[in-house]
């Protein structure tokens, strides 16, 4: 039952991550991504799946798909119709699920963040509709696969589990919101375990949208650099298995980290521009820490939203400065290496935080040349380990179109 009047839940379950899956332009899987993020590699390539000859920018952080990707229990006909978005979601989902050791026989809520779902199918539907095609059957398939609930259904079938599906489309914060919502369901005792994350694939329409807004960098994405000139888009997915600590211990599961806090807020300043003082960004960071009972002084690393656009980074820098006061914190934006993954960004960056906590290193913003003077904190610009002081807490920020803001706070396990 999703809701019953008068029901009561005992909150304050500890929530841990027992499985993680990730796919980005750096590669598929935890190991290749951890190596890439640790060393600050960049992975951008020319877009070939649609025509970019009339675009200002022609490259993105694209995932290279291998022909032998695991698709779980999907049938051959289901595998044949998978598009980029579905493949990304399946890759991350299967990796996380397999790492968790979960069995599919337990009902498990699935919470996904995405901005455009199967947009490539939607585009194909429109192009075909314009051409008055008589291939009606394929058109119906395109409609179905455009809808994100179909991609969610594919994941359920590929793994063989059942559970209610929730799809959050809070623009670029969607992935973080999905994990945050999952965290709250487990923490409150509503669910013992929840499967959550985000995914998005590069599509012609969305890429053109950012291109027309002149939000894309014609050079390279340099978050928090004084001369930054825009973001780079990327694609990918990340999924996490969240469960109560009690459940994880009973199963003797490997624990990747603990989620301590989640904050969400709304920036009503402008549809596409953050408040210059980062008011709502500050609210979401404060809420995540307050929920966890953690002070800024205890947070060793922030994986910033850090898109590389002039407006986002200055507002976020202001918010971080206000939030941290005189405490020290290291900050980086891994969008420098893989681009902005939109609905997947928050989930991917959550996994990056877990990688940093388990490996005890700081992921660098490797494209940084001249730090913006507004960013008075320590920007990690090259590979570095947490040698002197162990990295115990990491915060990740996700701020989206429409003012959707979310922050997640993680703690090292062990």
């Amino acid at each position, binding site marked *: *039952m*999703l*809701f*019953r*009047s*008068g*029901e*009561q*839940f005992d*909150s304050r379950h500890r929530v841990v991550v027992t499985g993680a899956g990730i796919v980005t332009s750096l590669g598929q899987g935890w190991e290749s991504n951890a190596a890439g993020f640790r060393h600050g590699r960049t992975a951008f390539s020319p877009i070939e799946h649609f025509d970019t000859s*009339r675009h200002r920018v022609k490259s993105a952080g694209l995932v290279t798909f291998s022909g032998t990707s695991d698709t779980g229990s999907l049938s051959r006909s289901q595998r044949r119709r998978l598009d980029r978005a579905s493949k990304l979601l399946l890759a991350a989902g299967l990796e996380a699920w397999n790492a968790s050791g979960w069995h599919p026989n337990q009902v498990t809520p699935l919470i996904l963040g995405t901005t455009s*779902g199967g947009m490539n199918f*939607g585009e194909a*539907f*429109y*192009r075909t509709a314009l051409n008055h095609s008589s291939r*009606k059957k394929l*058109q*119906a398939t395109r*409609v*179905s696969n455009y*809808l*994100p*609930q*179909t991609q969610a*259904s594919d994941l359920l*079938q590929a793994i063989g589990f059942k559970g*209610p*599906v*929730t*799809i*959050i*489309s*809070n*623009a670029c914060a969607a992935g973080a*919101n999905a994990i945050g*919502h999952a965290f*709250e369901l487990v923490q*409150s*005792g509503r669910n013992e375990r929840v499967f959550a994350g985000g995914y998005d694939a590069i599509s*012609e*329409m969305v890429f*053109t*949208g*950012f*291109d*027309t*807004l002149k939000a894309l960098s014609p050079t390279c994405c340099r978050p928090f650099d004084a001369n930054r000139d825009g973001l780079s888009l990327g694609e990918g997915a990340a999924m996490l298995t969240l469960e109560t600590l009690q459940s994880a211990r009973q199963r003797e599961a490997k624990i990747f980290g603990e989620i301590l806090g989640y904050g*969400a807020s*709304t*920036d*009503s300043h402008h*549809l*596409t521009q953050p408040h210059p003082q980062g*008011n709502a960004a500050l*609210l979401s960071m404060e809420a995540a820490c307050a929920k966890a009972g953690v002070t800024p002084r205890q947070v060793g690393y922030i994986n910033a939203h850090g898109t590389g656009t002039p407006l986002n980074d200055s507002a976020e820098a202001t918010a971080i400065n206000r939030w941290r006061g005189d405490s020290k914190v290291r900050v980086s934006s891994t969008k420098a290496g893989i681009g902005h993954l939109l609905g997947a960004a928050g989930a991917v960056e959550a996994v990056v935080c877990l990688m940093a906590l388990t490996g005890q290193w700081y992921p660098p913003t490797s494209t940084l040349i001249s730090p913006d003077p507004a960013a008075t904190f320590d920007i990690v610009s090259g590979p570095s380990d947490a040698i002197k002081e162990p990295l115990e807490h990491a915060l990740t920020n996700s701020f989206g*179109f*429409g*003012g*959707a803001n979310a922050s997640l706070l993680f703690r090292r396990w062990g």
Partner: protein
Amino acid sequence: MGLSRVYVHGSGAVSPGGWGAAALYETIEKGIPLRSSELQVPGRIRPLSILPVPPPVNRPSYLNHARLRRSSALSQHSVAAGREALGNLTPRVENGALRLGVIFCVMSGCVAYSRRFYDETLKDPQTASPLVFPETVFNAPASHISALLNLSSINYTLVGDPGVFFQGLALAAQWLASDHAQAVLVVGAEELDWITAEALGYFVRGIPLSAGAGALCLTREPSDVELGMVTDPLLIRHKKELAQFVPLIPTSFPPSQPHCLVENRPPSKQMERLFDAWTGDRVNTKTIIGEGLMAGSAWQSIYAVQRLIHKNEQRISVVTVGPNQLAIGAQFLGIK
């Protein structure tokens, strides 16, 4: 997290029946299917059948807000329904005395602007309008609602089959219980475009596509109507599972006297038989006001709330079966 009892403070609607929850209620109470109009699509012989929203008798002044200048019909209808549902809470929300959460639910989104922008992209991406693109994003309407009310609290956009509106109600109850918000506006909306009408035609026949929005404002302050429950959603993967599983939804409801079941399902004979065992009244809102997708689930809920108030009934159950085969139910209780 405290004991969760959740009440409906207010409801608001913009529908083919007119602007306002009262217009929606009266339209459904009459029980006469609205007459659809035809949408001519260039290059097509057969027009598409639609039920558009009539223009408002008096254009609300808030539609002149700078945020809504270039906004879609989806956003404007959502704002209107949301403000009506908020009612007398609006001043407290606007001055920050009441924390309002927003849950915006949608299936196809800002399709008119999306189609226009993609059309421009195909012609020449260099001349595609940068002003249109931000309005195509799924959460643009939620952002506009928040901006007009000067909100900074939590705000989600949920995407999926029409039954997601009920999931939104359950989520609102969670937010209220966990004190994320002191009131939550749950909005379901869709807009009309030929591309949606054509797409819908592959799945649903014999019913026009309609447009508009519906909103419920939920709080913990007791009122005339309480949200009793929201069932688990059922994902029906094969048509044969419809008859097998959907009738199970009413069995989730607690035993009670016969009462009204408000359905939001395609008017096929197979679907009509799904609830043959139901002993109370049955109303299928879709046959009267068309296929409103996510707005349709909101409208059936608003009808249920209005009916409880107008007819002094004790409880009404609602069930929706969406074109993507998500089936879910909820129950509203009248508080005497």
